[in-house]
């Protein structure tokens, strides 16, 4: 048994028992990265010095008998969308190459305060736009379960690093499924909290009304423990909620007996891979065996979710990305001869094609004469989608669905077909439009050995309920004990 095979809480136990030190655990993580990351390519940057310094500080706290919390000393990886003071942060873009932030994101500060050594910055689709990690400006990340395949996106680096046991846990962000979809494709647990549950301050914005950071781990219990650290009202984020933060680990083992779980009709339609469907159907039967009641529910506006999402997200992105103009930070085009050149050349050279595509979509959707027909209409449909969920949750405690319609696909397979790529998020993005919490938990493998994820959607701020439902399934199957063949 290697240290890197341990889950976050298993490692935390050994740290608490002083069987291992944080420095040993962190060195093990760094060594594992050195060993497997040339194949996986999950990390854009490793902060060895920073991580070891934090690990030694953690060990000093342990020695003094005053650990900062349960996870003190457990190494963690961060999607390169989280600002880290003094450590280059690029959002996977050439435009931010060399950008060293002067401040920490709120969640980064919370992680540091909780004593977690942050080992490095993880690969992602540029500015979190993509479903396969192939729009990273640096290099594509590979799925540890099959290196010829994508780990999903945009938090693909986070998912792959956890699946490859380079780090026991990582943070991702989820705008339309960017935590859950890669979690499903890599046999990991991904939790997108309720919008407003985790601070967005210091997280490079993609689509402000949809973005939400969350944990990516190997187990449900780890996700609960990590969420406990980062779920906090934040005065620096006006959209942060001051709803009380419960103990997410308290009812993990409470089971699902007596719960009503909804199966949304619209999430079981054509386009789903038969093997994925088989796994999900089997999971539904498992929940019945465990004492839950399955309820057929309808979310009638689901068919508009994709179109709605691809108006709202690019609209907000086109505005959020306007600050990358070459004037104050990041790259500036060297050949610029006029102010207009500074803008156009910097953005031409700095942004990749997926980002440009979305900026153009968003700019168009917001432009005068089209606003009412596109953006405003999308916001109205968004309300209808939210109301669908509200009605469903009057009948059921949570909803079950596939996370991704297909298992991990080959790198390069969908690059030339943006629509096919956008369809990857078809089951995940309604949840973002509604601001709800969503979780993906491993629920099996295809014959080719590719992971399948089950998505659980819940009422606002019912992360605890989702974790409990996910844990009930995980306890029966232990898929997290299966390691990617590296």
């Amino acid at each position, binding site marked *: 048994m290697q240290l890197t095979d341990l889950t976050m809480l298993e490692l935390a136990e050994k740290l608490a028992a002083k069987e291992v030190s944080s420095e040993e655990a962190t060195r093990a993580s760094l060594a594992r990265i050195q060993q497997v990351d040339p194949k996986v390519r999950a990390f854009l940057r490793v902060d060895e010095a920073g991580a070891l310094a934090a690990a030694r500080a953690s060990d000093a706290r342990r020695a003094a008998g005053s650990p900062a919390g349960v996870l003190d000393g457990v190494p963690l990886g961060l999607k390169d969308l989280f*600002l880290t003071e003094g450590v280059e*942060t690029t*959002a996977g873009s050439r435009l*931010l190459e060399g*950008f060293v*932030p*002067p*401040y920490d*994101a709120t969640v980064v500060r919370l992680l540091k305060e909780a004593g977690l050594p942050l080992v490095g910055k993880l690969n992602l689709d540029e500015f979190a736009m993509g479903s396969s990690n192939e729009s990273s400006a640096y290099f594509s990340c590979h799925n540890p379960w099959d290196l010829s395949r994508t780990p999903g996106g945009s938090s693909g680096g986070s998912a792959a690093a956890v699946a490859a046991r380079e780090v026991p846990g990582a943070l991702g962000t989820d705008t339309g499924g960017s935590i859950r979809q890669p979690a499903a494709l890599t046999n990991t647990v991904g939790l997108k909290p309720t919008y407003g549950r985790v601070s*967005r*301050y*210091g*997280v*490079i*914005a993609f*689509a*402000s*009304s949809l973005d939400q950071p969350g944990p990516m781990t190997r187990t449900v219990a780890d996700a609960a423990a990590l969420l406990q650290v980062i779920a906090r009202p934040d*005065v*620096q*984020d*006006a*959209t942060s909620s001051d709803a009380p933060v419960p103990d997410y680990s308290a009812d993990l083992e409470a089971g699902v007996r007596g719960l009503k779980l909804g199966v949304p009709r619209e999430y079981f339609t054509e386009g789903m891979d038969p093997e994925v469907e088989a796994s999900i159907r089997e999971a539904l039967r498992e929940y019945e065996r465990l004492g839950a009641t399955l309820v057929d529910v309808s979310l009638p506006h689901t068919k508009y979710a994709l179109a709605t999402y691809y108006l709202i997200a690019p*609209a*907000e992105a*086109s*505005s959020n*990305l*306007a*600050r*990358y*103009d070459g*004037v*104050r*930070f990041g790259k500036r085009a060297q050949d610029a001869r006029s*102010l207009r050149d500074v*803008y156009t050349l910097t953005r031409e050279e700095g942004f990749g094609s997926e980002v440009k595509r979305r900026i153009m979509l968003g*700019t168009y959707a*917001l*432009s*005068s004469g089209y*606003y009412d027909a596109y*953006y405003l209409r999308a916001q109205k449909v968004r309300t209808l989608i939210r109301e669908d969920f509200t009605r469903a949750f009057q009948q059921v405690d949570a909803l079950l669905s596939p996370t991704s319609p297909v298992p991990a696909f080959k790198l390069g397979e969908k690059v030339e077909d943006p629509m096919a790529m956008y369809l990857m998020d078809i089951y995940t993005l309604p949840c973002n439009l509604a601001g709800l919490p969503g979780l993906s938990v491993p629920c099996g493998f295809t014959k080719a050995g590719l992971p399948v994820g089950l998505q659980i959607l819940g009422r606002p701020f019912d992360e605890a309920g989702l974790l409990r439902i996910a844990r009930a399934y995980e306890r029966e199957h232990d898929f997290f004990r299966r390691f990617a063949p590296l």
Partner: protein
Amino acid sequence: MPVSDFQPVIGLEVHAQLLTQSKIFCGCSTAFGAEPNRNTCPVCLGMPGVLPVLNQRVAEFAVRTGLALECTIRPTSVWSRKNYFYPDLPKGYQITQFDQPICEHGRLVIDTPQGEKTIRILRIHMEEDAGKSVHDAGGGQSLVDLNRAGVPLLEIVSQPDLRDSDEAVEYLKAMRDVLVYLGVNDGNLEEGSFRCDANVSVMPKGSTTFGQRCELKNLNSFRFLKQAIEYEIARQVDVIESGEKVIQETRLWDVNKGVTRSMRGKEDAHDYRYFPEPDLPPLHVSAEAIDAAAKALPELPRAKLQRFTSQYGLPAYDARILTAERPLADYFEACAGHYTDYKKLSNWFLGELMRLLKEEGTPLSALRFTPAQLAELLVAVDQGTVSANAGKDVLGEMFRSGKSPADIIAEKGLAQVSDTGAIEAVVDDILAKNAGEIEKYRAGKKQVFGFFVGQVMRAMKGKGNPALVNELLKKKLGD
């Protein structure tokens, strides 16, 4: 047709910087004149990942202003983004209010030669200021100073109810008075914390259809506002006279040349792509908060002016000066509590007190004597204890030392001599020395009388009671 055959139509957009200590969406200082980029942080620099958090004072000030201008306060107003690229606009968008501003449908009454006139306020909204580009300062480079980025502004938009440049100036002055009274703005045009844009069009007299308008940007003095509007009216009339059409555009007032010139036309007008700001929740203002703000509203300049004329019986001229600034009006009222000849009190304010304040550069708040002491001095003058002239010296000393008038009069021996015997002795002495002048006087050269008064007063070092001096002189000269 000459200019006089046309009717100008004018609307103003006033931009007022709010007197908050910190910026609208972060904690940075709003102090003027700091070293470039000193008052900045990741939020107002628009760094990646930052989020705005509303400074609640800004909303309070907006509500206060809205109530003073008789606006409806929207219980829920919405923030929007106005997107455009400019080097001094850090985020590539300005956070402002668009279709649901915090205040709407108000009014401001101004004086015109034809009497009172109500100018309707269309809307008031809150927004953040941009930074400043400094060109050619660094060896041909352009530098950007973002100290001002994120400074809170109110934009107050009038309906096009103004009909000439004088009305526009009157409106701007009245608006400035209100904002300064409310304590929300310092009214400082030089530092740009109070400035305006003017929308100007002309139409043939008698027409009800407005002509094509042009926007005159960033007018930062009353004089420039008047000049720019007048130039623009004449220009537009010329354009129409020559058979052409006024085109909608944004124009700048060229201070040096005294002309307006085109800044950008409609064809390259921005598409600002407004949409609701997703980083800020809608702003809710409760009915209780509005009530409380309404109750706390001070008496406004116009109401105070009217009360000063009615309650104190002052001429409009006096009342206007006394009420122009709230501290002066307050101080006047404090004195009026101790002294009831209000016109005389006003004379002392408008004359001596304002002169001293101006000469010494002292703010009213730093006065070293009390309203009661000022009243005491005026009573002393009335009772003849001290002459009016000596009273001015006493006031000057009170101003400098803060001593009581009684002490100063005693110390300096300024008490007025009203002893008939003492005055008579001096009068006799002067008349004895000036027999020749007496001849002239008796021969009908009556202006010599002033000479005698002057001589007596000089001999008495100004302390002779002027009424008694006059009376005795007349008696002795046989009038």
